[in-house]
């Protein structure tokens, strides 16, 4: 029985694509590309498209088997488990950064003194619970509040639109194209999350125009990220470097501040909602990885294992954004490029291979 509908899969795609680009990415790109930061972002977002398409085509081609079953049948047990270990590390680092981003968001904007251990305990409890309940619960939860999240994001982005100053991004490419490309390279860690969607393989009730619907999801993501970032860069100008949280800080420039209070709490709520949902997806994917690697099925044990690894990684990285960003600019991004490279090549090979698995069609979407 398919546990996720096409509609839910599209929402998950948007969350996965959008989530990591809400807070830290824009200032990070600006640090390297300066006024051409928006072009760096556009190139980065465009890199997402072929990765997403590859994943979507793979999911559509192999509708009735899981990602691990596919890997195992084509590459054998050892190679497939090795690949899963690589992707597990990739996922855990991504999840760690998301937890870190949300902690920084709260501790810097909303709380004067926010104890780390309380944050860690609560965040792990809730995201772990959601992840433990599986893909169906995650998909339904996102489907339940996606409209609230998207409307909130739209309000956050548009709230400061009156304050934009076009001259903040002009002229383009003053120092050539290299700083822009360098910014994409240095911040590559933020891209390529769509390979996480491979974990939903075999669970999606694929409806007609599946690929087109995913393209629409990508279009929504692209328009929003580029649009909101454009507003952010044009409103903040050179002050971007002193702003750590793009969407969450944007409403501070809202002309409605005096009337409605500080609107940024709306962005805070929406961003937290999105980032924790994304963390749940990452933890669930990590659970899938460890389950497949160890051939055991107890979700609670796997949640504990993954959360423990994240905690260890957090302690190593001192749980601060600045420490992590330094690593992101260097070997975390290189690592991401390597992992994504492996999976892109693998996906192309798997797509080109002749399909052996009999597809019986996924008609039953009642329980999604």
């Amino acid at each position: 029985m398919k546990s996720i509908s096409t509609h839910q899969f599209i929402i998950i795609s948007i969350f996965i694509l959008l989530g990591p680009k809400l807070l830290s990415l824009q200032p990070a790109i600006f640090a390297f590309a300066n006024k051409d930061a928006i072009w760096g972002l556009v190139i980065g977002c465009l890199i997402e498209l072929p990765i997403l398409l590859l994943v979507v085509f793979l999911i559509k081609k192999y509708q009735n088997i899981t990602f691990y079953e596919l890997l195992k049948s084509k590459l054998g047990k050892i190679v497939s488990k090795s690949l899963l270990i690589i992707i597990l590390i990739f996922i855990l680092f991504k999840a760690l950064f998301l937890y870190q981003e949300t902690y920084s968001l709260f501790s810097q904007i909303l709380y004067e003194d926010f104890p780390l251990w309380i944050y860690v305990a609560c965040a792990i409890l809730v995201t772990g619970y959601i992840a433990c309940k599986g893909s169906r619960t995650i998909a339904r939860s996102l489907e339940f509040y996606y409209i609230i999240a998207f409307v909130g994001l739209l309000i956050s982005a548009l709230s400061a639109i009156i304050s934009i100053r076009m001259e903040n991004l002009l002229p383009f490419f003053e120092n050539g194209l290299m700083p822009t490309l360098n910014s994409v390279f240095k911040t590559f860690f933020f891209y390529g999350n769509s390979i996480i969607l491979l974990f939903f393989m075999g669970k999606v009730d694929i409806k007609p125009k599946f690929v087109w619907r995913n393209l629409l999801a990508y279009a929504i993501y692209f328009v929003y990220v580029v649009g909101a970032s454009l507003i952010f860069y044009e409103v903040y100008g050179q002050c971007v470097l002193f702003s750590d949280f793009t969407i969450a800080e944007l409403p501070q420039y809202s002309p409605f501040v005096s009337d409605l209070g500080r609107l940024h709490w709306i962005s805070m709520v929406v961003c937290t909602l999105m980032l924790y949902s994304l963390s749940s997806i990452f933890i669930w994917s990590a659970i899938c990885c460890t389950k497949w690697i160890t051939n055991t099925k107890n979700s609670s044990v796997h949640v504990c294992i993954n959360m423990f690894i994240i905690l260890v990684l957090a302690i190593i990285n001192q749980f601060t954004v600045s420490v992590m960003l330094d690593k992101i600019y260097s070997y975390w991004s290189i690592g991401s490029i390597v992992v994504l490279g492996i999976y892109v090549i693998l996906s192309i090979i798997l797509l080109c291979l002749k399909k052996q698995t009999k597809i019986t069609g996924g008609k039953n979407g009642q329980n999604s």
Partner: protein
Amino acid sequence: MQSLQKIISDYKQTFHESEDFITREFVAYKDINAVAMFIDGSVDKQFLISGVMRPLQNEDIVPKGNIAEFAAENLVGYVQTKTETDKQKIVEAMLNGFCVVIFENCETAILADSTKWIVRIPSEPPTSAVMNGPREGFIEDIITNCSLLRKRLKNPDFIMKKLTIGRYTQTQVRVCYITSIADPKVVKMVIDKLNKIDIDGIVDSNYINEFLQNRRHTIFKQIGVSEKPDIVAAKLLEGRVAIVVDGSPMVLTIPFCLLEDLQSSNDYYITSGRATILRFLRIISLVVAILLPGMYISLMVYHYNIIPIKFLISIANSIQGIPLPPFLEVLFIIFLFEVLYEASLRMPRYMGLALSVVGALILGDTAVKAGLVSPPAVMIVALTGVMSYTVPEQAQQVSFLRLVFTIIGGMLGLFGMILGSMFLIAYLCNMDSYNTPYLSPFAPYNKNDQKDGIMKMPAPAQRTRPNTIPNINKKRQG
């Protein structure tokens, strides 16, 4: 062959010489001794004399063959009868209001239906009052309740399966469904679960309710409950299964989803636009009732910088000199509110007015004037208390969640409120009631079912039955 006196003595012993076990000896067919036995208060005595005993006494024909079979046929014109030889079944029949007639030297007994339990007249249920629409409500008698349903569903496909549950109470339970609409798998699941119940007694449908729940330890309703036949009939037409329990005016319906409680029967008797607005109002009220006290404490304790400055000054003035911190202050008022609510339920009706005067005026007003609590905190708790009753069926759950979110808000602020909300949504999304997702038709989203979701489309637009409720016949119109 036992003598009549021995038989009477046997039955008296079976009932342990109970005072309400009545025996009346008489002579039937001129010279055959007979006894009529029944439970006092469960039969219509006038009818027993005129419809059972007198016809047998007045009969001149000498019966041939089995007297009981012969007499049962004779009585057909007066009363519904059947014959029985099994003592256990005869006792059960008496307990269910049948009069038993036994003849001397005859092993077979006549069971004459002369049931007349004391019941009240169907009236408008206090929990489901409507401005427009039918005002009939279920009562404590299963026969009346089933006839109220049958009156609305005049189709042979509407069937009732009888079960008896409870070793001592022998409570009659009827599983009602429309065989051409309800999903047989759901019907089987329900009947199987009912058959597995082994308990000494069922005194109300809520006993059954607790046995039918898939999750035992949850505060959320998993079975629908209604006191109105029009609501149950409408649910049966959507493919649900209803369970009518003798002695209870509450009829259970399965499967259940949260949306059902957000809909009111009144919605179907007013214009669609108005119904949609009311549904929005209920949802907003429900969310605000759960989250507002927690949000208030979060803002006052942790995030006062996001409150508009004019509003902040006004609140700051009103909380000056209050001895309790906002967290304890709100908890204190919630505690007072719950105590008043509980007392008003249990207190004799004539004391109700006095209680509301004491509660609202003396306690509230005096506490504010004495500087024990602040007006904003009283206003917020009172507002959420009122809002929670826009959906009375969910008031208990809302009350519990309000307390939980108040504690979370007081301890963790906005961060806790967001995490708590996410946890709650995930928990509800994970729940299913007999193959129906708890948050359907929103999660999973179902386009067709949105016609009677938050929005209420006019009846002609609802051409099919809900997709999220399992049923075997989707077509509703045309």
